[in-house]
C-alpha cells in the first residue's frame, strides 16, 4: 500500500497517462465496423493496439487501486477492516489485470505466430 506523497503523485501521474490512453481506446474501438469475433481479434492483434492496451490495463488498475484506497480511508474508520478491504480489492484487481494481459497476449501471438 502506498501512502502520503508517493500515493498522491502516482495517482496524478497515472491520471495524466490514462487521459490520452482511454480516449484512444474509445476512439479506436469505435472505428471497428462491427464487433464480430474476427474484427475484435484483428483489432487486438494489431501491434500498436496490443502495446497501448497492455499499458492501459496496467496503469488503469493502479489508478483504480489508489482511488479506492482514498475512498476506503475516508469512509471506513476501523483500520483493520479498512486494510482488509484494500488488500482484497488490490489482489482481485491485480488478478484481473493479469488475466487481461494474458488474454491480449494470447490473441496477439495466436495471430502473429
Amino acid at each position, binding site marked *: 500500500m502506498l501512502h502520503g506523497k508517493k500515493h498522491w503523485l502516482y495517482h496524478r501521474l497515472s491520471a495524466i497517462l490514462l487521459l490520452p490512453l482511454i480516449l484512444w481506446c474509445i476512439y479506436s474501438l*469505435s472505428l471497428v465496423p462491427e464487433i464480430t469475433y474476427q474484427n475484435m481479434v484483428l483489432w*487486438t492483434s494489431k501491434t500498436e493496439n496490443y502495446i497501448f492496451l497492455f499499458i492501459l490495463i496496467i496503469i488503469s488498475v493502479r489508478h483504480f487501486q489508489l*482511488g479506492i484506497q482514498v475512498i476506503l480511508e475516508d469512509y471506513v*474508520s476501523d483500520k483493520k477492516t479498512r486494510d482488509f478491504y484494500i488488500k482484497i480489492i488490490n489482489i482481485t484487481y491485480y488478478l484481473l*489485470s493479469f488475466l*487481461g494481459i494474458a*488474454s491480449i497476449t494470447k490473441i496477439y501471438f495466436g495471430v502473429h505466430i
Partner: protein
Amino acid sequence: MSLSKVPLSPHLQVYRLPLVALVSISHRVCGVINGMGYALFIIFLISIASGFETYNISYVVFTSTIGKILLSLWLFSLYLHICNGVRHLFWDFGYGFSGNSPLISSLLVVSFTVLLTGSTILLYLM
C-alpha cells in the same frame, strides 16, 4: 468493533447538495463504476481470447438494447470522471478556486460530459 478517533465523513444522503458538491461526489461514485467497468472490459478481453463460441455470448450481450444502455451509462461515468479529473489537475496546481470559478468549472464539466457522451452514442452506438 473498535472505532478509531478519525471522524466519519459527512452523511451525504441527508443534504440537498449544491452542484459543486454533487459533481465532486459524482467523481468518486464514477471512479468506482469505472472500476467495475474495468472488470467487465477484462471479461470481454478474456471472452475474445477464449475463442469464437465464448465470444458470441459477449457479442449478444453488447449488441442488445440493455447492453447498449449499460455501455452508454458507463461511457457517461467515464467521461464525467475524465472531465472532472482534468479539473482536479488544474486544482492541484492551484487554479480555479477563487470567486465563482468552482461553479463555472462544474457547469463546464457537466456540459462537456453530456456533449462527449451524446456524440459518442450518436456516432457509434445508434
